[in-house]
């Protein structure tokens, strides 16, 4: 039994590590709501100062405190990632399920629409969304979420079709199970693992997409620093003040890796074939 316990612990290791990483970012974001060392638009410091006191991580080229910016950036990164994954996930899952179950011609129509949406650059979509309101974090999330929903929908459609071709679906129907229950009991649990891993990947991409959108002025407006825009703005001074590039870069990587570890961990925990070996 101890061997089994050990295996179980080893399996949950990525989950634990992922939770620690994501938890760290979440903690920073929560703290930033109540306290930051300086106000984000405080440009009183000297420009491009190295780490020290009172600016623990130094300042950027406008003399703003880097730590403050990073803490607020955590909020924005999480909101961008989670917001667009929820939006893209819900729309994508619904559209994908519909296409997966649809008759031939409806499926063709939906697939064509998805292809168009996927071919549409996220940037253009973001500009369109921003044109209807003002450019903000929300408009960026809507744009990224919409672009993501097409990708999620296409993946869902393929996964659903694959599951529907399995005999256990037919067996379920001949057992008198209604379609909604077939979806809840067999289809969703069986497409979920692949979908979660993909959504985690999309989370990372969304964080990066938000970064590039705000760099172009299509995301959260200043002084709400996003990690991606910090990265872009600090590029020019990378040799003078390397921390300005390294800090947001490392944080983006940690968050993305963390989310992926959580997704992998959740998948393994939910999968009976990984949970126990054949006796």
């Amino acid at each position, binding site marked *: 039994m101890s061997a089994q316990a050990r295996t179980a612990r080893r399996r949950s290791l990525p989950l634990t590590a992922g939770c620690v990483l994501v938890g760290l970012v979440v903690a920073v974001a929560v703290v930033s709501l109540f306290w930051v060392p300086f106000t984000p638009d405080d440009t009183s410091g000297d420009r491009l100062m190295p780490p020290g006191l009172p600016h623990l991580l130094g300042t950027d080229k406008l003399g703003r405190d880097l730590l403050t910016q990073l803490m607020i950036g955590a909020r924005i990164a999480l909101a961008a990632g989670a917001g667009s994954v929820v939006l893209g996930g819900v729309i994508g899952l619904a559209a994908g399920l519909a296409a997966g179950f649809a008759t031939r011609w409806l499926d063709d129509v939906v697939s064509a629409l998805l292809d168009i949406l996927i071919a549409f650059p996220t940037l253009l979509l973001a500009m369109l969304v921003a044109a209807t309101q003002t450019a903000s974090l929300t408009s960026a999330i809507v744009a990224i979420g919409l672009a993501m929903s097409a990708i999620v929908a296409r993946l869902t459609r393929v996964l659903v079709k694959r599951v529907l071709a399995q005999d256990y679906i*037919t*067996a379920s129907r001949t*057992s008198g*199970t209604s379609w909604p229950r077939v979806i809840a009991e067999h289809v969703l*649990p*069986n497409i979920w693992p692949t979908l979660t891993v993909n959504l985690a990947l999309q989370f990372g991409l969304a964080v990066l997409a938000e970064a590039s959108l705000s760099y172009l002025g299509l995301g959260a407006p200043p002084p709400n620093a996003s990690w991606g825009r910090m990265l872009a703005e600090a590029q020019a001074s990378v040799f003078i003040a390397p921390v300005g590039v390294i800090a947001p870069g490392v944080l983006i990587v940690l968050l993305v890796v963390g989310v992926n570890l959580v997704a992998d961990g959740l998948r393994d925990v939910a*999968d009976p074939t990984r949970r126990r070996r*054949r006796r």
Partner: protein
Amino acid sequence: MIPPIIEAREAGFAYRRSAPVLADVSVEVTRGRGVALVGESGAGKTTLLRLLLGLAAPTSGSVLFDGAPLALGDKRLMRGFRSSVQTVFQDPYSSLDPRQSVGRIVSEPLRSLGLTAGGPRATRRAEAAERVAAALRAVGLPEDAAARYPHEFSGGQRQRVAIARAIVCEPRVLLADEPVSALDVSTRVRIVDLLAELRETRGLTVVMVSHDLAVVAALCPQVAVLERGRVVEQGDTADVLGSPRHPYTRRLVQSVPRLPARPA
């Protein structure tokens, strides 16, 4: 004359704008007189089975259940039909949901058809568990199998799980699609034995699609030979396979690989 439980009457099936997959097929399943549907791939066996299972409606003719036309939209009628007619598939790796425990898989018909007696949830649960355990015992699996997952079982054991699911609601007819052809020879014999035993002990009528004439001979008293969507020969298995009349049936019988005769 006993009325048939399921009957296909001049049933046909065609996809839109294409040649019919099935034409004018009449097959009767009466109690204790299981029918084997024999033929090659593309002969329409599986389509016919889908019609008999109420998974698709014939595009011409009709399918009757206890003398009444099978209305796929009629929920009450279909519930009665589903609890009387259950199925077993060819591939035991595809027919069991890998994410559900065996207990949950086997109890699905009970849950979906609401077949446990009323009462509080706990009583219903206990009754379902008892019936699942009985079904597992009937197919020769240990009771603790209910807590395990499909991947922990071999192909033959998985097929037993699938059979347990099919018999848990005490159906009258078992429609099996190539139930043993994905299994090894020795396992195949054991599953054929199991089906024969269930037929005897539970009065189960076994309808089977198979290309394996030996299995057909062992399990079904009647046979219908299909070729390109039509029944070319039909009757008692001993007559049809023992002295085939139609050239196609003859070719089928002759093609079965046989062991060299044992020297006297």
